[in-house]
């Protein structure tokens, strides 16, 4: 009996500790977000730093985004053709591929890849700067690390994400064209014509852009926070990087449901 009670108490203690740590973590993140927001516009006094980050975060992610977009488009084309051919509707392949990509897969898959490729890199870089006292050195040189290091990276993520998602969708549509039109013989005029007729610039394209902006916002924020909040040890860096990928991916998927329900729910 006493063993059972002590196990229950140990479990409650563990749960309590976890809840306290989670509350502290959330509190630190809220304070950090406020501090970063205050520095977002002052960071534009050095636009070169933001451009550098767009390059580091966006341009260097191009390869993974283009290759993944191409493969996703090829798979969508193939699957779509198989399903649509049962209903003699293969001329709708273009709109099926493009709607899937622009509304959903483009922003979401890009965000997941972005969290793994750029988000983890941002976290590791900031956490390493903290561990090696580079952030402290900046503070002691009267340079604000939130303005000099964090805000430009956040802007970089915010700008890069919609551009990468658009590129992902574009390459995916070309992949669908390649498999549907070039390999399986769908009429090219139907492929492009249906896209032109059925896709709405506001309901589909703009909503996709809003989604990718929202995903860029949360990934950027999580990545810079986890880096800045990391324990200054090698284990701390590793944990922070993992947390960025896991938290960003889950947040993106959850947020995607909310945004989809808001944008496309009847």
């Amino acid at each position: 009996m006493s063993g059972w009670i002590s196990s229950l108490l140990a479990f409650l203690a563990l749960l309590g500790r976890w809840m306290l740590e989670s509350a502290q973590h959330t509190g630190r993140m809220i304070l950090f977000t406020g501090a970063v927001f205050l520095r977002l516009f002052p960071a534009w006094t050095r636009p070169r730093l933001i451009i550098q980050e767009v390059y580091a975060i966006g341009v260097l992610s191009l390869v993974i985004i283009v290759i993944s977009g191409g493969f996703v488009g090829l798979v969508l084309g193939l699957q779509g053709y198989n399903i649509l051919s049962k209903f003699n509707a293969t001329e709708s392949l273009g709109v099926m591929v493009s709607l899937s990509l622009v509304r959903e897969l483009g922003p979401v898959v890009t965000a997941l890849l972005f969290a793994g490729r750029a988000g983890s890199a941002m976290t590791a870089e900031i956490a390493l700067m903290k561990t090696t006292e580079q952030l402290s050195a900046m503070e002691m040189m009267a340079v604000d690390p939130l303005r000099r290091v964090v805000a430009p990276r956040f802007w970089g993520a915010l700008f890069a994400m919609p551009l990468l998602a658009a590129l992902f969708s574009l390459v995916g549509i070309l992949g669908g064209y390649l498999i549907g039109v070039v390999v399986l013989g769908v009429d090219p005029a139907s492929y492009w014509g249906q896209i032109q007729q059925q896709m709405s610039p506001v309901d589909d394209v703009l909503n996709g852009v809003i989604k990718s902006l929202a995903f860029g916002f949360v990934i950027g924020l999580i990545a810079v926070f986890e880096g800045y909040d990391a324990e200054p040890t090698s284990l701390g860096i590793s944990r922070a990087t993992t947390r960025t990928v896991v938290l960003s991916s889950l947040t993106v998927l959850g947020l995607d449901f909310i945004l989809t329900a808001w944008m496309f729910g009847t």
Partner: protein
Amino acid sequence: MDSYIQFERVSFSHGRRVILDQVDLAIPRGKITAIMGPSGTGKTTLLRLIGGQIRARSGRVMVNGLDMGRASRSELLAMRRRLGMLFQNGALFTDLTAAENVAFPLREHSRLPEDIIQRIIALKLQAVGLLSAADQMPAALSGGMSRRVALARALALDPELMLYDEPFTGQDPINLGVLLRLIASLNKALGLTSVLVSHDVAEALSIADQVFVINEGRVVGSGSPEDLLVQKAESPFLQQFLDGVPDAVTGQSETEARNLAAALGLGVPAVPMAEQESVQ
């Protein structure tokens, strides 16, 4: 004596652990002051309090007339522009060359034309004897060279106050000599106020004008290096710290040492009991 920095009954703690306990000290202007003590006694905390990175739980830290506990953010930034700090590991920005590291504070805080910035970089790197390493990345520099580049960076804005955090740790004898000479000569030539945190007794005493020894959060010895030698006679802790006597060795006999080595399996035979008794 005119003080640049003053600690008035300053206390600081991490959770329940007291790091500094009612510390009073005055650091004179234009001199080298060494703050010494065993590892983990709050020496670096003291530097962070001076730099305003942390605030005291109680008491007052005054830096050049500015109360660090009440200073606004802009006052703090203005004070830090007159301050240079050499971190224990150099803390160079790893994605910038040595020259760009030195240029960093200049680019952040001045609108000097590029040719002037290049001249200042050359001047500062020349001062630390590393002009030839200007284009090297920090990863390509040795520990001693990194620290000298960091020193050049700390001096870039011609500070009034220099803070050194364990500058001698892990240095080979040649680099150690170079650093000692640099710190002493720069202080004299530029009229700086220097605060040097170190547990390297001989090195710190050789260049310091004034010394504070801290143990368990309290000042246990202060004065000129000569004063400390006098105080040493009356304080067992100062005697042990300044002479570098480890705790365990005090009073340990050769027999005890051999028995310990045997117990650890180091291939040394233990001293037989009969022999131990005859020695005693």
